[in-house]
C-alpha cells in the first residue's frame, strides 16, 4: 500500500459515509433529536474534510 492508495481508500470511505448520512437524514425517522443534530454537524464538516483530503492528495500535507 502506498500513500496514494491510502488516500484513495480514505477518500472513498469518507464519501460513502457522507452519502450514508445524507440518506439517513432524508429517509429515516430519527426519534432522538441529539442524533439528528449530530448528523447535521457531521454534514457541516463535509466541505472541510473534502478540502483536507484534496490537500493530502496533492501531497501538501505529509
Amino acid at each position, binding site marked *: 500500500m502506498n500513500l496514494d492508495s491510502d488516500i484513495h481508500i480514505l477518500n472513498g470511505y469518507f464519501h460513502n459515509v457522507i*452519502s450514508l448520512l445524507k440518506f439517513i437524514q432524508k429517509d429515516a425517522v430519527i426519534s432522538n433529536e441529539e442524533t439528528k443534530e449530530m448528523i447535521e454537524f457531521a454534514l457541516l464538516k463535509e466541505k472541510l474534510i473534502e478540502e483536507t483530503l484534496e490537500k493530502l492528495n496533492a501531497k501538501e500535507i505529509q
Partner: protein
Amino acid sequence: MEIDIIWFKAKMKKSELRILLVEDDAFTAQTNKRLLRPYGAVIVARDISEAHELLANQEFSIAFFDLNLYGELDGLKLLNLAKHLNIYSIVLSGEVRKEVLEEAFLNGAKDYLNKPFSEEKLSSVLKRFFIHQNHIEFENLINKSFITNSQSLTEELYKIKNLAFSDKPVFISGETGTGKRVVAHLIKNILGNENFIEINCSQYTDDLFASEVFGHVSGAFTGAKNNKIGLLEQANNGIIFLDEIHALSPKAQKTLLKAIEEKEFYPVGGVKKIRSNFRVISATCENVSDLINQGAFRQDLYARISTFEIELSPLRKRVEDVKLLLEYFISQQPFRIIINDQAIEVLSNYSWPRNTREIQDLVENWVVHGNRLITPDVLPAHIRTNIDPKTDIISDYYLDLIEEVGLKEFLIMFKKELIHAMIKRHKGVVKHASQAMGASYGNLTSFLKSNSGKSLNQRRAK
C-alpha cells in the same frame, strides 16, 4: 440536484434507463447505486464474471465501470465488450494514470467520473449522456427528413441538434424550394413541442396580419363580431413559425418586434395586454442583408429573430444531390422511370431555380405524361437550354435600344449579332454557319457587308 433529476426525467420521456454499475467494493457499490437510482433502474455487478453475464443477458443503455476490480484492470476488458454492445460507458475510478485513461477511452469509454464523485458531477455526466443519445436520435431524424449527400448542407442541418437545449429564436434562410418548412417542422419534432402555429406573412395585409397574429376584440372593426384569439396567444408555450417574414410591412415589423421583445401585446382594439411565452422560428427566401441595406427590413427585428441561423444552400451549389433527389422522387412513384446518361447530364447542368420542389414537380410531370424512359428530348426546353422560364429573355437593355433606334434598326443589329455568334460557333467558317442557319452563303455575306457599321456589341460597349 432535484432540479437536475426533474430535468433529466422530463427529457427521458420514453422508457426508464437501465444502468449497469460495476463496482467491487460493497459499500461504494451501495452508495453509488443509491445515487444513480433517481435516473433509472440500477443493476450492480461486483466482479468481471457477473458483469459479463449481465452484459450478455440484459440490455443496458449506460454502464459505469470501476476500472480496478480486485486489484486487476478488468474494467478495461468490460469497456471493450460494452462498446460492441453499443452501451454508453463511463469510467468510474480513482485510477488517474494517464495511460490507463487513454486505454479506457480507446476501449470505448465515452466519459470519466473520478471516484468518489459528487451528485453534481454525476448529474453533469448524465446530462452529457442524454445529449449524446439525443444527438444520435436527432441525426437519424434529420437524415430521414432531408435527402442530401452534401456534407456542407448536412453540417448546417446538424446544427439543429443543439436547438433542443436552448430556447433561442431560429432564422431559416434559403431560396424557394430548399426546404425551409421542412426544417421548421423538423425543429418542432426535435423540440417535441406539438403546439406549432404556422403563418405565411406574405398572405396578409397589415390589418389582417395584426388581427390574425395579435387577435382582436369584438367591435374592433367592422365585421369583428366576436373576440378572436391571436396566433401569438395560441402559440403560448409553443412555437410560432413566421414564413416569408420579409413580406411584412415596416409597420407590421415594428409591432411584431415589440411583441417578440416583451412577449406581451394588445389584441386589435383591446385594452388588456396578453402575455404569451412563444418561441419564434422565421424563414425567408430573400437576402435579408440586401433588404436591410435597402431599408425594407428592420435590422433590430433581424437581430432579435436570428440568434440561431440556418442557411439552406440551393441545389445548384450541390450538384451531387440532383441525381439523389431524382432517384428518391422516382422511388415514390407507382412505376419505374429510367433516365438515360445524356438526360442525367443535362439535368445535372441545369440550375434548378425552384430547387428540390422543381425536381419533385418534374418527376410528377413525367408520371402524368406516362414517360418511362427519360432522354434529353423528353426534358422541357428550359432545362435543356438551362434558362429559368421565369427569367425574361428580352432584357431591359434591348427594350431601351428598340425605343432609342426603332424596331427595324434594332432587328438589323440583332440579326448581325446572331450571325457573328453562329460564325464563331462554327470556328469562323461562314459557309458552315450559313448552312446551320438555313441561309445562303451569298445572302449572309452581303447582309454583313451592307450593315458593317451597325454593331450591337459596339453600342453595348458605349
